[in-house]
């Protein structure tokens, strides 16, 4: 996912932030976290998190493995209790009134927890009960979820017979069986082939068009850029930047980035060091040196670099600039 060609196709596909029903800024947020800290023993997984997810948006939580995304998600369902800080979901204080929030919320966990003792259809039926879908509406809710997951013809198979992609689709359909107002998707496309991933992106866009709030964690740059109205970049249990992807890129990386082939073994007085010394923001990916805001490049250095390949700036550039770490 780091080829330059792919980056430019990503940026043309990026949805303008103003597309679709504009979220009402005065409406109460779907999710609000204030100063949330979570420690496991002496290890701090979430370290003073402030997050406000407006109602009706797709909100992306972008960060590398171990950033604290899943821990944050689990705190929203009270399956993980914050050490300190305040959380409210759909206006309900969590964990105190978490059950109210969970009733109106659909959850798709990072790790598959389908009921392997049951069939596809039974999995969905059980969740219509757990989510308290009124009896008369249960059969229709199950059928709808089966269509959603494209699994109507596998309804009587036990879930341990399904492929990875089918399991993920069922896991997602299970979380939507009660038409939630808020959906939590924890790394929903990890390990999926491109076709299933595209399919899922379509679903997320459709949910958004219906006014459902989506909180999605991912460590895929492209996914966050394409789908999210707002992204929060997360590293080491904190949000390092938050905003519309296009705004974050414009602010922290610049619209255009130029890539140059520069051998990585830089002895200290090489061009990379001199670029850094001159205050030019650069980052390295293998043999490629990316120069952010190439307009500010001093002419002698530009001449030394030779011809570069211009591409659109992306969230990876933002992330590396702000944290020094890569996301993927």
């Amino acid at each position, binding site marked *: 996912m780091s080829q330059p060609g792919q980056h430019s196709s990503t940026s043309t596909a990026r949805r303008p932030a103003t597309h679709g029903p504009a979220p009402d800024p005065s409406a109460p947020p779907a999710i609000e976290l204030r100063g949330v800290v979570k420690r496991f023993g002496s290890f701090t997984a979430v370290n003073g998190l402030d997050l406000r997810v407006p109602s009706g948006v797709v909100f992306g939580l972008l960060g590398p493995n171990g950033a604290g995304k899943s821990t944050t998600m689990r705190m929203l369902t009270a399956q993980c209790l914050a050490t300190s800080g305040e959380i409210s979901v759909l206006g309900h204080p969590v964990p105190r009134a978490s059950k109210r929030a969970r009733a109106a919320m659909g959850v798709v966990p990072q790790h598959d927890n389908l009921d392997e003792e049951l069939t596809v259809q039974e999995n969905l039926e059980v969740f219509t009960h757990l989510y*308290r879908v009124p009896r008369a509406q249960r059969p229709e809710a199950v059928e709808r979820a089966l269509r959603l997951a494209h699994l109507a013809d596998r309804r009587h198979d036990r879930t341990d017979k399904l492929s990875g992609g089918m399991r993920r689709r069922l896991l997602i359909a299970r979380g939507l069986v009660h038409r939630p107002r808020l959906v939590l998707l924890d790394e929903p496309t990890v390990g999926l082939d491109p076709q299933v991933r595209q399919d899922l992106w379509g679903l997320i866009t459709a949910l958004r068009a219906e006014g459902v709030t989506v909180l999605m964690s991912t460590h895929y740059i492209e996914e966050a850029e394409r789908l999210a109205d707002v992204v929060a970049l997360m590293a080491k249990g904190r949000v390092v930047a938050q905003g519309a992807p296009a705004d974050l890129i414009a602010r922290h990386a610049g619209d255009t980035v130029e890539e140059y082939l520069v051998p990585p073994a830089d002895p200290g007085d090489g061009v990379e060091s001199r670029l850094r010394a001159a205050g030019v923001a650069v980052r390295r990916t293998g043999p490629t040196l990316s120069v952010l805001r190439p307009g500010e490049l001093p002419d002698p250095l530009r001449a030394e670099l030779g011809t570069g390949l211009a591409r659109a700036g992306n969230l990876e550039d933002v992330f590396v600039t702000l944290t020094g770490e890569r996301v993927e």
Partner: protein
Amino acid sequence: MTLDTDTRAAAPSPPAPPRRFEFAPVAGVLAREWALYRRSWRPTTFAAVAEPVIMLLAFGVGLGSLIGAIGGYDYIEFLGTGIVATSVLFTSMFPGLIDTFVRRVFQHTYDGMLAAPVDVRELVTGEATWIACKAGVYGCAPLLVAIGFGLPASPAMLLVPLIAFVTGFGFALTGVWLSAVVPSIKTMDYIISGVITPLYLIAGTFFPIDSLPAWAQVVARINPLYHCVELVRATAFGIEPLRDLGHFAALLVFVAVMWLLAVVQMRRRLID
């Protein structure tokens, strides 16, 4: 994946605000068990009925011919009532211990359920209720066999399913609690040999507890299964209200203590 936007317009109105303990999530857990049972009732029923019946026939007929009478009753009658209790113990403690462990640790079933509006206390109650229902029904099998061998049927025996349900509820909760105490599935052997075996032997099931040393008699009286045995015998051989209400109260205390322990320990394991 595509959404049916047309059907979405008919979204149900939000459910009534949840309370601390609700029956809807318990019913949801039971719905799951029922879905599973519809497909697996044959082997479950076979195991639950065959084992006590074989034990009853082997010990009752084989040993009974040597022993004759015990505590004033025919040995097969004494044993038939006792085996109701061991059957309840096995059909409740093993699923509580093993199924709960597998679902929590290997299948992560409970993680999925707790993301829905279900709390640990409701989850635990639902699992134990289902197991107790099975114990209530299957616990009657040895009694029916004993009746077939000449134990006189009495109307009070209609209370046996209730006694078996309450006892099964308590032992299912015990199993759930211990499943959340053990660090691994291997350490369950300690519980099976160190807890379950003495529980079912020192309860007046196979021999009356008055033949035990004094200290063991004290242990037996603490054993909830003993109170179950005494109640089942009372329905067959005559109820004494005061004594038997005492036994029933002991079972209720057992249930209450185990419920608390199971809920607290499961919450510790399921909620980080």
